[in-house]
């Protein structure tokens, strides 16, 4: 991602942080980390509680190392998700929002296998958001059943995407939605309807 879109994403993260700080459920329950991937993947901010989250500034780089990103994501899920123990309440099914605007530039199948294993173990849900015209929808559909497309990367659509992500994290934090408490796997249906300018791929 380059130029105006990357700046809009940075702004979106600031608004996301501000929205979480106004929500007692998010402050109590949510923790956030950010992984980025260009020619390589790395953890931009490590997992912290919502109250300590500092939104990073993103920079534009070339490449779409999706395979490396999925490996890093699998590592993060395994390392950061903690089960219920006598001392700890246990982490609820992690939500992953993956945004990308390109075609993978590395071999991503090994990463996919590792991600799938980790996601199954921790009952994680991934929401893939394809940005702009050049995105590989088929690739995203292999990752998850929940694919959304944002064809126009305008600052407005990016802003409403982050509103929606904030809403989704807040909804998930509203301690365990009714469905979850009844043992139903969290699905897209639990999240708020996506904003205008964003299409859900079925």
């Amino acid at each position: 991602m380059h130029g105006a879109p990357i700046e809009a994403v940075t702004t979106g993260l600031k608004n996301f942080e501000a929205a979480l700080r106004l929500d007692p459920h998010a402050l109590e329950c949510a923790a956030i980390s950010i992984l980025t991937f260009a020619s390589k993947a790395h953890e931009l901010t490590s997992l912290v509680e919502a109250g300590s989250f500092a939104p990073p500034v993103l920079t534009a780089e070339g490449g779409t190392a999706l395979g490396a990103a999925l490996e890093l994501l699998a590592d993060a899920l395994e390392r950061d998700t903690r089960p219920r123990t006598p001392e700890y309440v246990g982490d609820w099914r992690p939500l992953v929002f993956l945004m990308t605007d390109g075609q993978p530039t590395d071999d991503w199948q090994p990463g996919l296998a590792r991600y799938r294993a980790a996601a199954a173990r921790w009952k994680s849900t991934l929401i893939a958001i394809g940005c702009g015209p050049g995105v590989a929808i088929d690739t995203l559909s292999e990752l998850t059943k929940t694919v959304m497309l944002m064809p126009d990367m305008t600052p407005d659509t990016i802003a409403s995407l982050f509103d929606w992500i904030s809403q989704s994290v807040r909804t998930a934090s509203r301690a365990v939605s009714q469905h979850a408490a009844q043992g139903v796997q969290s699905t897209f249906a639990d999240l708020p309807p996506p904003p205008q300018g964003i299409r859900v791929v079925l």
Partner: protein
Amino acid sequence: MRVKLQDGTFVTCEPRPLGQGGVGRVFRTTDGRSVVKLFHHPTPELEKALPLIVGDYRRIADGTEWSELYRWPDAIVVEPTLGVRLPLVADGFHELSWLIFLKALASRPPSWRSWRSRVVIASAIASAVTRLHGSGLAHSDLSPRNIWVDPLTGRVTLIDIDGLVVPGVVPPQVLGTPEYIAPELLVKQARPSSTTDLHSLAVLIYQLLLYRHPLRGPRVCSPDPAEDDLVALGPDGLFVDHPSDASNRPVSEEWAGFWPTRLLGPQLMEMFSRAFVAGLRSPGARPPAGEWVHALVRLTDRVVACSSKRCPEGFLPLSDGVAPICPWCRTPLKLRKRTPVLHLYQGIGDHRYEPEPHWWIAGTEGRRIYPWHTAKGIAAATSMNARPIAEVEHDNGVWRLRNHELAELRVIRDGREHRVIPAGDSVALHDGLTLLLAAPPRGRAIIVSRFDL
């Protein structure tokens, strides 16, 4: 956006929703006085329920004091979808979640932390639920999301009244919020009712007063928190302060964040046991809402200021059999010399009185006497704004009770009326002094003793 009300008039709303929940989206009206809630999926049951809630049952929220306790819908919206119009929550009110979730509370101003406000809030919530239940209604989703409070004054307002369960008429629309849901609902062996509300109410009161969920402790039922919840919050849940099974009890009383229930005194300890030991499997064992009001009003009279200026909560309860040490900051309580204790007695006719169980007032400086102290059958106020009718003073080493506006404050000696203390005057609170607060047979008496710390 324009919405049409049932009476054919139109209301204009802001285009962007204020928020959105499981059942609907909420918009502020452009006049700034109300919000409009539009339901995602209106059911025929809801269509039947709303006219009753907006109509007949609205009398529950009549009167200044009661109207503040509920954000009662005042009109039905018919277009673009079924919805309701509700009064906007006043400035200064916040979701109760801010006080229940300690990480969230840590991000708020220190003035939001006051254990005394917590008692007042708990008592007001219980009053609001008592009034609903007294009219045959159940709330069905009592949770920190649906209760808004002013942390500074202790005022409370219940929202989401549109989810009310009208018995025999309307099946409930929601099952409630997991941590507050009654165990029999979690395992789908019941429908929401006033009995299931009583579980939610007990959980909320426990969390407000002791900062922890009563069923969440070290006992692990599953490594998956969702599955763990299904057991921990269900009929096989285990009260963290169970009187004979310590397996869900946080390691020791010294363990940060675990305060034993007995801090609140024997009456509340017994009630919480009924709610969280017997009540998990026998819903009928749960204390009714009115009994919580009764106990919490009495607790308020035993709340005293902590002796440490740095105490995060500022106030603590004094209870029979519990050492007078602040449970939150561990500072030993220092009271002024010869601080009086006012024991309440209820008239039972024929000039005879019997002690009110668990009811005594810590006669610290500024302690206020209210109308509900004086006689049976007077409802306690639901905020700290109530008008006192008498007040304890400390003047030149002498403890006195100042009569602000009690019509008949009488000193009794040797079983007979000795003298009347007119409004504006005061009486010294000597050991053994007997005061009559109102005329028999409903009136109550006070007998004075001293703290022995």
